[in-house]
């Protein structure tokens, strides 16, 4: 069966510090991978998606970037965090069907 791992679960970082959130998927090949941000228990905003290794599409220009160094690994990064980067970040995968989400990372920028 397929599983998705996302870590860390919570993170507190100072303004100006770098960020690296990692997401890995097991049990499937060549999945579409996604990074979403969710504000205060509301809807999801798509940040990045990837249909293959090294292929990244950005939906919202901002202080973040994404990379896909391996087929089942998706990384969300920032060189310098802003206060407005605080939020709940969700990784998800899909293969011609619905999205399967990780348990999210709660990021607080102080």
């Amino acid at each position, binding site marked *: 069966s397929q599983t998705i791992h*996302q870590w860390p*679960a919570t993170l507190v970082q100072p303004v100006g510090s770098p960020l690296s959130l990692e997401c890995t998927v097991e049990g499937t090949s060549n999945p*579409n991978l996604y990074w979403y941000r969710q504000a205060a*228990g*509301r*809807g*999801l*905003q*798509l940040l990045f*998606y990837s249909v293959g290794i090294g292929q990244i599409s950005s939906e919202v220009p901002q202080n973040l970037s994404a990379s896909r160094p391996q087929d089942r690994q998706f990384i969300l990064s920032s060189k310098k965090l802003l206060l407005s980067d605080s939020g709940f970040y*969700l990784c*998800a995968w899909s293969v011609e*069907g*619905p*999205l*399967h*989400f*990780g*348990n*999210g990372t*709660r990021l607080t920028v102080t």
Partner: protein
Amino acid sequence: TQLLEQSPQFLSIQEGENLTVYCNSSSVFSSLQWYRQEPGEGPVLLVTVVTGGEVKKLKRLTFQFGDARKDSSLHITAAQPGDTGLYLCAGLTSNAGNMLTFGGGTRLMVKP
């Protein structure tokens, strides 16, 4: 840009009551998905509706896709405290790279 509007945003009811959550758009979707999310976790798929007018039932939950495939509703009968959570609808547009557009969510609280 497609927009999915969910209503109500918040709903607090007593155990045993019925409720309906609405998801509306001016755009046509090839399919529509409903997710439920609990605090500190990712959303989990409840159902996918594909055909206009389709009705799907999942125990006490009834999902309907509008005839024109622009809107959907979720009806819960005899709500229970375990139904508490954030309900999200998401529309899929096949001519937009199979991207999902999420509604803003409905936060449901069922009090015992």
